[in-house]
């Protein structure tokens, strides 16, 4: 029962990853693509636990899942910090005030 549950669950996860891959493929902005990659990375941690259930070695694959989730989180933070223009909040407020004066 555990075996078939794991197989059906993994197949359903793969099937539901296809819309996310579509969003990565045609994302209008680059943030959409990063979001899709982040979602797929989180689901891969689940998929690693499922594969561990199939191989009867869950205690080993759970460590892989922890590592994968950690790397996914660090990657998302680093890419989002890299992509913004590193404007501090004070700069944004001053820019908004200037825009209000021009109007």
């Amino acid at each position, binding site marked *: 029962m*555990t075996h078939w549950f794991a197989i059906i*669950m993994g197949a359903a996860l793969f099937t539901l990853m296809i819309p996310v891959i579509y969003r990565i493929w045609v994302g*209008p902005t680059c943030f959409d693509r990063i979001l899709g990659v982040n979602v797929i990375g*989180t*689901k891969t941690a689940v998929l690693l636990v499922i594969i561990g*259930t199939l191989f009867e070695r869950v205690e080993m694959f759970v460590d892989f899942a922890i590592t994968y989730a950690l790397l996914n*989180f660090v990657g998302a933070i680093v890419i989002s910090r890299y992509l913004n223009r590193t404007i501090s909040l004070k700069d944004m407020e001053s820019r908004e005030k200037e825009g209000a004066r021009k109007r």
Partner: protein
Amino acid sequence: MMSFSSPFQCLASATVEAGSSEGGFLVLQVIGVLLGVLGLIFFLGAAVGLVRFPDFYTRLHAAGKGDTLSTMLMLTGFALVTMEDFSLSSWLLLIKIMAVVFFIYLTSPTSSHALMRAAFEDDEMPITEDDIKKRNRQKGGKKS
């Protein structure tokens, strides 16, 4: 098929042992399967929202919530399903999987918040009703 025959034998022996002692084993499995299916439903919602929503922020809303909750539900379900007997190693496995769940519970909203902050500081504006009206007018103009 040879590699698949051993888990069945192991499971069969486990069910026989659990059936002889107590019936808590099957209850845990049923709860785990229900949690897994619930997580799949939440991930279906996240995927549909990720495809159909019009704006980056709405898509982030769908993906951030649905992804976090579905991952937590599915991992908890698998932690309950793989709980074969109540020995020390299986308790350790349960604690490990719950550690992954706790980690994702902390990090997934954090990463989506950082992504939202990056998009907002990159002058990506959320969609408004005027934008939708303009889009509809342009579509109608192209058709007529």
